[in-house]
């Protein structure tokens, strides 16, 4: 095990447990203000945890408020959204800063810097000043600078978010190469599913300062257990409690569906929390009550209607499950025929065969804590 994190940080109500294996890249996903950057600051040593501990390769980086290794003694590299290249040093001077700080001679540090610059394809820019670089070039130099210090753990805080559309792929490519070698653990904070898929082995979803989901990136994005992951994946998600027949939502309604991939019905223990996940394309929208089984159907109020290519995406707020919005994709013709507009009351229904029921841990409410694995 490379990194073991079990920390609480009271000022931001953060309480996170996380393990990262050697060479593993973990993506931390979550809405704004969920505590992702706070988590990185705790790992980098820029914040002191209220309690709990951070252990990296057997070295205790922080334990409670008492034991605290300052950032410069942690061997934890940080790559931020902005490259933050030191403006008064040239490119090679920036990259050589880490080796120089570790005690390397001027010549050693320079040769190490040039090697790493070559790795990220920036060797030709060694003598440039940071302000002469484009955003993508600057971020590649920042990557080289972080790598040159030879960190045991690399923290990446939305490293592609500040780049323009043209520069992001080239930097993503470089990150993919340096992270893909499998010799360095990394924690990648992002809100971009594409980055998580391209760069990470595992994804962790943080909501309200808690880890609510943890699994392979692919699984988190296709079979989400948390509201945020469902939003990322573009799927609908309703929380509830398992019964013998399916999932009981807080309004007393029943959702029936299939077990999640690789899960037998045995895991659906009555009384345990779970989520129902379905695709917006599986949701049927009616203006009048279609009658029939009350299962898998809800009365809702349309809050937004937006065209998305071939279909129209309807966002509707469930009248009896406030706080739960369901997305439904209908054809353009149907949307016109139903005269869908914000404020209209609709009846939503979804076939049981289109619903996946996943067990979760913790209470079936917002900000639920679901260490799934």
């Amino acid at each position: 095990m490379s990194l073991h994190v079990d920390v609480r940080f009271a000022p931001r109500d953060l309480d996170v447990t996380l393990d990262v294996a050697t060479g593993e890249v973990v993506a931390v996903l979550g809405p704004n203000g969920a505590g992702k950057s706070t988590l990185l600051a705790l790992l980098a040593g820029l914040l002191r945890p209220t309690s709990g501990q951070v252990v990296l390769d057997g070295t205790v980086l922080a334990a409670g408020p008492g034991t605290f290794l300052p950032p410069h003694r942690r061997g934890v590299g940080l790559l931020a959204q902005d490259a933050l290249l030191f403006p008064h040093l040239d490119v090679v001077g920036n990259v050589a800063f880490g080796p120089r700080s570790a005690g390397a001679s001027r010549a050693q540090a320079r040769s190490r810097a040039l090697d790493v610059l070559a790795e990220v394809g920036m060797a030709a820019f060694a003598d440039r000043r940071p302000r002469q670089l484009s955003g993508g070039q600057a971020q590649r130099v920042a990557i080289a600078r972080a790598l040159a210090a030879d960190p045991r753990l690399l923290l990446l805080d939305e490293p592609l978010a500040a780049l323009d559309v043209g520069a992001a792929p080239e930097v993503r490519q470089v990150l993919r190469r340096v992270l893909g070698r499998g010799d360095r653990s990394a924690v990648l904070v992002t809100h971009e599913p594409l980055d998580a898929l391209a760069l990470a082995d595992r994804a962790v979803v943080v909501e309200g300062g808690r880890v609510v989901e943890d699994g392979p990136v692919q699984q988190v994005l296709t079979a989400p257990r948390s509201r945020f992951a469902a939003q990322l994946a573009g799927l609908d998600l309703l929380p509830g409690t398992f019964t013998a027949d399916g999932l009981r939502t807080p309004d007393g309604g029943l959702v029936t569906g299939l077990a999640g991939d690789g899960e037998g019905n045995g895991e659906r223990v009555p009384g345990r929390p779970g989520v129902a996940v379905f695709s917006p394309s599986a949701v049927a929208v009616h203006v009048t009550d279609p009658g029939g089984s009350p299962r898998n159907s809800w009365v809702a109020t349309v809050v937004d209607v937006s065209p998305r290519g071939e279909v129209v995406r309807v966002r509707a707020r469930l009248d009896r499950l406030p706080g739960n919005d369901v997305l439904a994709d209908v054809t353009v013709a149907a949307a016109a025929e139903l005269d869908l507009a914000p404020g209209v009351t609709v009846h939503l229904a979804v076939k049981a065969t289109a619903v996946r029921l996943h067990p979760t841990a913790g209470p079936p409410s917002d900000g639920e804590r679901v260490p799934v694995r």
Partner: protein
Amino acid sequence: MTVRRGGAVEGSALPRWVLVPAAVGLLLFVLPLLGILSRVPWTQFVPLVTSDSSLAALELSLRTATASTVLCVLLGVPMALVLARGNVPGTRVLRSIVLLPLVLPPVVGGMALLWTLGRSGLLGPALSLVGIQVGFTTAAVVIAQTFVSLPFLVLSLEGALLTAGDRYESVAATLGARPGRVLVRITVPLVAPGLVSGAVLAFARALGEFGATLTFAGSLQGVTRTLPLEVYLLRETDPDAAAALSLLLVVVAVVVVVAVRGRRNVL
């Protein structure tokens, strides 16, 4: 308001009447300069500013102002660092204390120093015991000048530190740099322009110091009589010399302003 080179005002419209008090204010600065120029005996200028007493005052002024600027940097840089980065409780109180010499009448500052470090002052007897006499020495001039000019350096540098933020410093620390190395290699170079303009302002303030110097250090030729004191002394006995030396101080002030503005434009 953005003023084009041609003088045209663009952006949000400014009521025209604002220009009148603004112009009056400007005249308040410009007319006295003309007043000095009108009194300078141009034919006598060089002999006047190179007389023994003038040269002594000029040399003393440059020496003491330089010494107090060095002191300001040595004391002010750590003070600004503590204010901007220290995370110490009571920063607001500290900042108010630093501001005090800026708003205090210099004469009062001089009296305060005299009552503290003077022979019969608070610490005077103790200092006398170890053989240190501060009052009415060149050292007193330097202390008085430092007293009044330190806030300029601290505030200027603190502003630069707050503007620069601590993100570069955080990155440097994660790259393995100890706090001392971060300070010398990252923080100081990043705020160098603010440090330079702060030092220049402090130097200018020290050069022009009058009230605190007169009360705390007195006016002994070659020992404590700096250029402003010399000008004041000459104003009745030799107005021509006073005017010539005044012009000299104006020239120094203009050079300082240009130097500071030049740095600002670099930023």
